[in-house]
């Protein structure tokens, strides 16, 4: 009894291999297995129906409609800049999480952790470079994306609101970059952030050096700069705040706005085009 079963088991695959060759057998064992079919609910043949199913039966791909306007995915129309901005955001998330394993946001450790990344951690320097350059690149691609959207007039009805969502994305992108600048705790980041946050001192009404700030009782210990830095100087508290904003707060915010942004693109009738 047992023997017979084993036999059929072997002969089944032997037959398969004979019929389709070794590669073909492996192919059908994987792609026609019950497991595969439970995950991907569409056939592999290149039919219009399967093309549609590939997109709409996949939670990640169904961000896209099953079919798009002919001109929309053309490089000369979008410059790919929105998509590349999003891709860079994903790269930054991945490399950022890896960097977090090696980095402690304290005055005592931060700088030396970065140094360790450069010289001790396997591929640490590459990791750090990737994160840094992708961040710079993302600022540029977002600017270019905004310019392309403007140049094609794609903010016009019905996409007014999505343009505003985009402006928020732009601001958050810059803030992410800015908060990241401080984390290396070197002279460059420290003074850049000092210069940047010094401007907050002179916020009208809310800064102690700003117009009417003094009259409203603002001092260097209760004004908006103090709230941003967690102190009156760029120190340990500022580092921790920058870290939390950079790694948790702002990524959450930008993800939420990106969700709205992408959802709205489809609700507004897909990528804009000549009417």
């Amino acid at each position, binding site marked *: 009894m047992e023997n017979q079963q084993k036999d059929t088991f072997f002969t089944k695959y032997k037959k398969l291999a004979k019929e389709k060759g070794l590669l073909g057998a492996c192919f059908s064992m994987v792609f026609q297995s019950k497991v595969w079919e439970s995950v991907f609910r569409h056939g592999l043949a290149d039919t219009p129906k399967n093309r549609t199913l590939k997109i709409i039966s996949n939670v990640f791909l169904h961000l896209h409609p099953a079919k*798009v306007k002919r001109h929309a995915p053309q490089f000369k129309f979008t410059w790919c800049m929105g998509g590349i901005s999003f891709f860079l955001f994903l790269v930054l998330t991945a490399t950022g999480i890896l960097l977090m394993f090696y980095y402690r946001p304290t005055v005592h450790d931060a700088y030396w952790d970065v140094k360790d990344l450069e010289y001790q951690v396997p591929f640490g320097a590459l990791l750090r470079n990737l994160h840094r350059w992708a961040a710079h690149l993302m600022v540029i691609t977002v600017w270019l994306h905004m310019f392309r959207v403007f140049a094609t007039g794609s903010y016009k009805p019905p996409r007014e609101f999505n343009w505003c969502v985009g402006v928020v994305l732009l601001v958050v992108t810059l803030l992410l970059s800015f908060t990241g600048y401080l984390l290396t705790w070197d002279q460059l980041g420290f003074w850049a952030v000092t210069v940047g946050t010094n401007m907050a001192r002179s916020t009208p009404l809310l800064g102690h050096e700003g117009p009417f700030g003094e009259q409203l009782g603002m001092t260097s210990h209760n004004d908006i700069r103090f709230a941003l830095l967690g102190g009156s100087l760029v120190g340990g508290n500022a580092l921790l705040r920058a870290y939390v904003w950079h790694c948790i707060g702002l990524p959450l915010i930008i993800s939420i706005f990106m969700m709205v942004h992408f959802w709205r693109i489809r609700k507004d009738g897909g990528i804009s085009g000549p009417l």
Partner: protein
Amino acid sequence: MENSEENKEKKGRYRALAFIKGKTFAKEKDSDISENEIATWPYLMRKELLAAIICTIVLIVWSILFDAPLEELSDPTMTPNPAKAPWYFLGLQEMLVYFDPWIAGVVFPMLIIAGLMVIPYVDFNPKGNGYYTFKERKLAMLTFCFGFHVLWILLIIVGVFMRGPGWLWFWPWQEWDPHRVVAETNYDLTSFIGVKSNSFMGFIIGGAVLFGYFYSGISLPYRLLKSRKSVAIEKLGFVKYTMVAFLFLCMMALPIKVCLRLVFHIKYIWVTPWFNI
């Protein structure tokens, strides 16, 4: 089914009237795709994949070739000269030369954000929606390009490459000389007519100049356009027009102040006990 088909034939709904040469109106049934559409899979997906791959390659090569900057450990007692903000904020830092920090660092950024956000609500031109055109929306394009390329990008370039110690102007090929001193005295606007800017008279005159700039900048074009019965002003309405004009004047205030400073060495236009502009 068959019955109704027969019925239709009996009624003679379909008759060939003529033969027309050209594409058929009939569509292939399975693929419900019209002529100006294409399937996302594979046509868009493969482009996205390609873009992602190219991006990854460029990033990795770039990261292998060039190291991210890391300077010495931060030292609050050692201010570098110049201390520069990150490059994407250098436009704002460059503005500090011409405006006080509360304008350059706070008010202008907010106006930029607000200005960007109102664009779709005040641009009533229905043309140029979804395609590249300069001809059909010259004003919008020129304004945006002036603000974005000339003011924002150019100031960043100046900030990154031309500014050395003391935030003085150094050409990229010039050596930074930390001891260079430029004797430059700037005057407030009212001192040109012999009125001290921090006197009451100076306060009144300076305020009047500034108020006059915005008032005439807003009202004169409005009257002109009204008298010409311009369609633009009808569509825009008074409130939206005022907002656009105000934002536009704020944007133009930057190059105006730059000129005033560089040509006439003017420091402030309006000096008040609380703030200076």
